[in-house]
C-alpha cells in the first residue's frame, strides 16, 4: 500500500509557539530574545552591571582618578589610606582608599578589570576558536581523527582547568628567557587559560556537527564537490553558533575566575600591572590587619563581573534553548 498520508506532518508545537528559535544566530537575535531579556529583570540588571564594568574597563585611562601604573603619581606614604579620605602625604583623594603601595584602589580596580577582561575575553576567544575548529574537524571527519580528538577532550575535561593552566604556565616559564617573561606574562596567561577551556566547545560542536553532517543539504553540497571547509563554515558553523555563544559566555566567567585564582596562586600577571585576581591576592594579606578595603572592593568587583556574566550566560542558555552537553 502506498503512503496514504495526505498532509505533510509538522510537529504541533511549531504551530503553537509562534517562533521557535534554533540554531541560526540571525534568528537568535530575533525580537523573541529581546522579549525574554526585557521580561527578566535579573538579566537586565546583570546586563547593565556587566556593561558598566566593561565600559569602566574600556575607558579606564579616561575616567580613572589616577594612573596607578605611573610611578610618578604615586606616593608610597599614602599607603593604607582608608576609603573616602585624603592621603597623608599628597592631596590625593581616595574614594575606595589606597593600597599598600599608595595606589588608589578605585583606579587599580578600573585598570585591573581591564587586565582581567582582556585576559578573560582573549582566552575565551582562543578557547572558542580552538574548540570549535577541533569540534568541527572531529564531527565532520569522524573515525580515527574523531576518536583521537575526543580522547584528548576527555583527558582535558578530567583535569581541573587550574591544574592544566599551572602546567602550561610552567612550560612557558621554562621556554621563555627570563628577561622576556614579564612582558609575555599576560599572553602566557591567555594561552594557559585558553588551553584549559577549549574542550567544552569541541564536545558541543562535534555533537552538533555530526547531526548536521547527516542532513541532506550537507550531503548534497558534498556530492557537488563543495570544499569541506566551505561546507563547515557556511552550513555547519551557523547551526552551532547558539550553543557556542552560551558556552562562550559561561567560559568567560570561568576564565575571569581562573585568572583570579592563578593570580592568587602567584602565577598571574605582575603586581605592578595587576588584574583583579592580583589585587585580591594583595588585599588578602590585609584581611586580619583591618585594611579591609584593599581586599573588599576588588573582590566585590570580581564577583559582580563573574556573576553578571554568568547570569547572562544562564539567560542566554534558556533563551536559545540549545541542547547543551
Amino acid at each position, binding site marked *: 500500500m502506498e503512503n496514504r498520508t495526505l498532509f505533510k506532518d509538522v510537529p504541533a508545537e511549531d504551530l503553537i509557539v509562534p517562533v521557535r528559535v534554533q540554531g541560526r544566530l540571525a534568528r537568535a537575535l530575533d525580537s523573541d530574545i529581546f522579549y525574554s531579556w526585557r521580561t527578566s529583570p535579573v538579566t537586565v540588571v546583570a546586563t547593565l552591571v556587566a556593561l558598566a564594568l566593561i565600559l569602566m574597563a574600556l575607558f579606564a585611562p579616561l575616567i580613572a582618578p589616577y594612573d596607578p601604573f605611573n610611578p610618578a603619581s604615586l606616593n608610597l606614604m599614602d599607603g593604607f589610606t582608608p576609603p573616602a579620605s585624603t592621603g597623608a602625604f599628597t592631596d590625593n583623594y581616595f574614594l575606595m582608599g589606597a593600597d*599598600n603601595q599608595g595606589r588608589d584602589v578605585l583606579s587599580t580596580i578600573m585598570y585591573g578589570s581591564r587586565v582581567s577582561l582582556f585576559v578573560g575575553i582573549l582566552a575565551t576567544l582562543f578557547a572558542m576558536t580552538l574548540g570549535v575548529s577541533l569540534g568541527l574537524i572531529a564531527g565532520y571527519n569522524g573515525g580515527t581523527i574523531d576518536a583521537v580528538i575526543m580522547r584528548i577532550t576527555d583527558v582535558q575535561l578530567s583535569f581541573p582547568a587550574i591544574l592544566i593552566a599551572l602546567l602550561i604556565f610552567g612550560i612557558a616559564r621554562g621556554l621563555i628567557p627570563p628577561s622576556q617573561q614579564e612582558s609575555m606574562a599576560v599572553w602566557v596567561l591567555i594561552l594557559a587559560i585558553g588551553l584549559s577551556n577549549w574542550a567544552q566547545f569541541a564536545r558541543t560542536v562535534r555533537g552538533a556537527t555530526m547531526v548536521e553532517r547527516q542532513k541532506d543539504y550537507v550531503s548534497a553540497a558534498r556530492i557537488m564537490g563543495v570544499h569541506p571547509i566551505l561546507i563547515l563554515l557556511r552550513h555547519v558553523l551557523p547551526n552551532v553558533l547558539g550553543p557556542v555563544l552560551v558556552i562562550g559566555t559561561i567560559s568567560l566567567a570561568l576564565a575571569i575566575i581562573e585568572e583570579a585564582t592563578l593570580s592568587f596562586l602567584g602565577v598571574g600577571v605582575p603586581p*605592578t600591572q595587576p588584574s583583579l585576581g592580583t589585587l585580591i591576592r594583595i588585599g588578602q594579606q590585609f584581611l*586580619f*590587619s583591618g585594611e579591609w578595603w584593599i581586599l573588599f572592593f576588588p573582590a566585590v568587583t570580581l564577583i559582580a563581573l563573574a556573576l553578571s556574566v554568568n547570569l547572562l550566560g544562564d539567560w542566554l542558555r534558556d533563551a536559545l534553548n540549545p541542547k547543551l552537553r
Partner: protein
Amino acid sequence: MTRKILGLSAMLLSSTLIVSQASAETIRWARASDALTLDPHSQNQGVTHNFAHHVYETLMDRDVEGTLTPRLATAWAIKDGAPDTWVFTLREGVTFHDGAAFTAEDVVFSLDRARSDKSNMRQLHVDVAEVTAVDDYTVEVRMTAPSPLYPNNLTNTFIMDKDWSEANNVVEVQDYAAGEDNFAVRNTNGTGPYILQSREVDVRSVLTVNENHWAETPPEVTEIIYLPISDAATRVAALLSGEVDIVQDVPVQDIERLSATDGIKIETGPENRVIYFGYKFGDEPLASSNITDSNPFNNPLVREAMELAVDRDAIQAVVMRGQSIPTGIPNPPFVDGWTEELNTYPAVDLERAQALLAEAGYPDGFSVTLDTPNNRYVNDEAISQAVVGMLGRIGINVTLASRPVAQHSPLVTSNETDFYLLGWGVPTFDSAYVFNDLVHTKEGSYGAYNGGLYSNPDLDVMIQSLGTETDLEARAATVAEIWDVVKADRVLLPIHNQVLAYAMNDRITLPVHPENQPLMTGVTFAD
C-alpha cells in the same frame, strides 16, 4: 587544692585534670614550614636546624644576643703552639635519648659525618684537616690553616651517637639520588632537651621533655606540638582562634591587629639578615634595558642616583609597618665590622638623582627588569614594587618580575639577572662571610652569590687575607677598609635589616632569636 574535694567523682576527675595540666605545659608552636628532614647533617636550612636544636645538640650555641655559649662543649681554645688546631672540652655526664653516654668519639664521628661528601653541612667544615679524640672528653680539630673563627661554624652542627648510627646503618648521610631511604631521616637519637614522640611531615610533630637532660633547670615547656601552617592568613587565624600558642612567622601587617587582641602579644627583635638590591656590572649592555650600547649600572653616578631615589624610611613605615631597620650597608648589626657610621644612608633627593642621571648620560632615564622573589623574605615583592615606583620618579622605568625563590635564586647564581633583590644572613657573625660570597670576584669558591659579577682585584686580595689572618686587630682593620670601599663604590643597594616578630599567647614569653631559631626551652610562663 584539697579544700573542695567532696567525694564527687566528677569533681575529682576535673581537678586531677587541672593538676596534670598545671604540671605539664604544652606549647602549640606554628610556623610556615616544617623541618625538611630529621637527619641533622642533610640540610643546611634554618627551619630544619631550628627543629633539630630541640632533639640534637651542638658543641656551642648562640644566645639571643648572638654570642657563643657552651653547650656540649664547655670550653674551646686554640691549642698552645699549634695555631691551626682547636681544642674542645666536652661536657660530662650527658646521655643520648637511648641512654648511651656522650663521649669524644661521638663528636669525632659527627664532625666527620658533617664534613663528608654527602653532607649539606660540608661547606662549614671545608678547612678541617682532621678530627681526633684526645680522651673521652677532649677533641682536637686540626685545620688546614689557622682558622681563628672556626667555632662560629659549629652552631648548627649536631652531635649524633656513633653506636646508634652504626647500628642503624646511617653512618653516611642519605644519598637520595640513589633512591635510598635512610633511618636517620625519620628517627632521632640526640642529647637534646626534648624527645621526638611522633611526626607527620608537614602536619604535626610531638616532642616531650627529656627527663634526663643535663641542664640544671628543666624547661617549663614539657610538651611541644609543632604545627607547620603554610598559608599566612590561616596561621594568623589559628592564633586568633586560640588553636595555637606561638606563631613564629607573623606577617608584618598583622602585628598591629594581633597585639591589639586580648590574650595575644608580640615579641619583636632584629634578625641577622639584610635585604638588598644587586646590580649587573660590566660593560655589556643589560639584556632587559632599552639602552643597547652601554650598561647604566656600571656607571657609579647611576648607582648614586638610584640610592638617592630609594626612600628607605617610606619602605620601613608603609611596606614594613615599622618592622625593619633601614640600613646603608649590606651587613647586619650583629656582625663584626658593622659600625653606626657605615649604617648611615643619604636622604632622598630626587632632583639631585635626576641631575646625576643626566650627568651620567641618561637624562631620560632607562628601562630595566627587576627580578624579585615573592615567597622568601618579609614582604619581598612589596619592597620591590615600592622601589619600582620610586625609581620611576627619576625616569628609570622598571618592569617587575616576581617569582618563587626556587625560580629566582638560580637567576642570581647564574648571573641571568640585571637587577635583583636578595637577602643575606650571616650565620658566622663575621663580615668575611659577606665579602666571600657577595663582593669577591666570582671564581672558585668565592663570589657564589655575586649575581652582578662585581669585580675589584684589590678587594679580592684583602678578602682572601681575612681567612688566615690570626691577628684579630689587623683583621678588623682590613674588614673596615673593605667596608669603606664597598660602601663608597655602592656595590649593592642595601635597604634594611629584617625584624622578626613572634606572636604568642600572652601567658608565654619567648624572646626573638637573631637567627630565627628560638628554643622552646627559653619559653617562660606568666602566672
